[in-house]
């Protein structure tokens, strides 16, 4: 039962990606990614509003990041981020060695160029979550080898 619930999100996400890809009209890859990212953004905002309802106030930026890596990630992907690195100047790198949305794809050159489409929604999710917690940032994602991916978060310093 639990397994089928997990795969439900996978399937919905796959359908969302292919919906945006196959939408009639002119479709540039960039547009698809931007739309998916925006979708993730609004979902992330709403999710985090609900998840943080009973959690104590966050002290600083790093604490918010830890929250994203642990609680938020567990709630969405059933596991924690494997590695969080930061330069303490607004750049954070979140590494997931076995990212749920990529586990079904085989490794190799064949699918590497399609991977960004499957990471746009998760990036938006992170950006929306951080935005609602008061951090404006940009998020970019890249794949090293298939189920392994990195999200880089840049918070502009004022």
């Amino acid at each position, binding site marked *: 039962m639990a397994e089928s619930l997990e795969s439900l999100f996978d399937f919905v996400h796959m359908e969302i990606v292919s919906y945006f890809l196959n939408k009639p009209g002119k479709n540039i890859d960039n547009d698809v990614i931007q739309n998916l990212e925006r979708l993730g*953004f609004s979902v992330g905002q709403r999710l985090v*509003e609900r998840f943080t309802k009973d959690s104590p*106030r966050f002290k600083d930026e790093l604490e918010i990041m830890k929250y994203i890596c642990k609680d938020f990630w567990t709630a969405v992907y059933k596991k924690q981020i494997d590695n969080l690195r930061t330069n303490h100047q607004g750049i954070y790198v979140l590494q997931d060695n076995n990212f749920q949305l990529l586990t079904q794809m085989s490794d190799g050159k064949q699918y590497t160029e399609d991977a960004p489409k499957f990471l746009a929604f998760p990036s938006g999710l992170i950006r929306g979550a951080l935005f609602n917690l008061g951090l404006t940032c*940009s998020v970019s994602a890249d794949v090293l080898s298939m189920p392994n991916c990195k999200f880089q978060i840049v918070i*502009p310093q004022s």
Partner: protein
Amino acid sequence: MAVCVAVIGKEVNFLGYLAVFFLFDEILFLLQNYPLYLRTVSPEEELKFHYTVHTSLDVVEEKVSSLTKSSNDPRELYLGLLYPTEDYKVYGYVTNSKIKFVVVVESANTALRDNEIRTMFRKLHVAYTDMFCNPFYNPGENITSRNFERTVFEMMKKD
């Protein structure tokens, strides 16, 4: 019970915001500390309470920044009594998403304890979260949800 209930929008780091994404429809957020919702028991007094709530924002900010530094239970969302005036007491609450709730009660009403105010804020927060998760609500817009309104009226009901 309460004579006025208000919800105030968030503050956004304006500079970083412009630099990173100008494209999206998040522009609504650029309104800083904007009242998303305000209801009073008697509509004629609305302007007066706008003023009261506006004044309280400075105290909210002060409390939030001092609470994060000092160590005595800095993590609670409920801020407690912000300031008393001759006729009213003003209470505050800030969510993790930097949305501020302000509730004004009459000073004469001594039956209202701190704990009751706290539960009032909890209810308000739950109602706000439910409203926020409605896909037809765009973050940063004024609140028009009927369910939310019902919770607020419940809070202002005379008992």
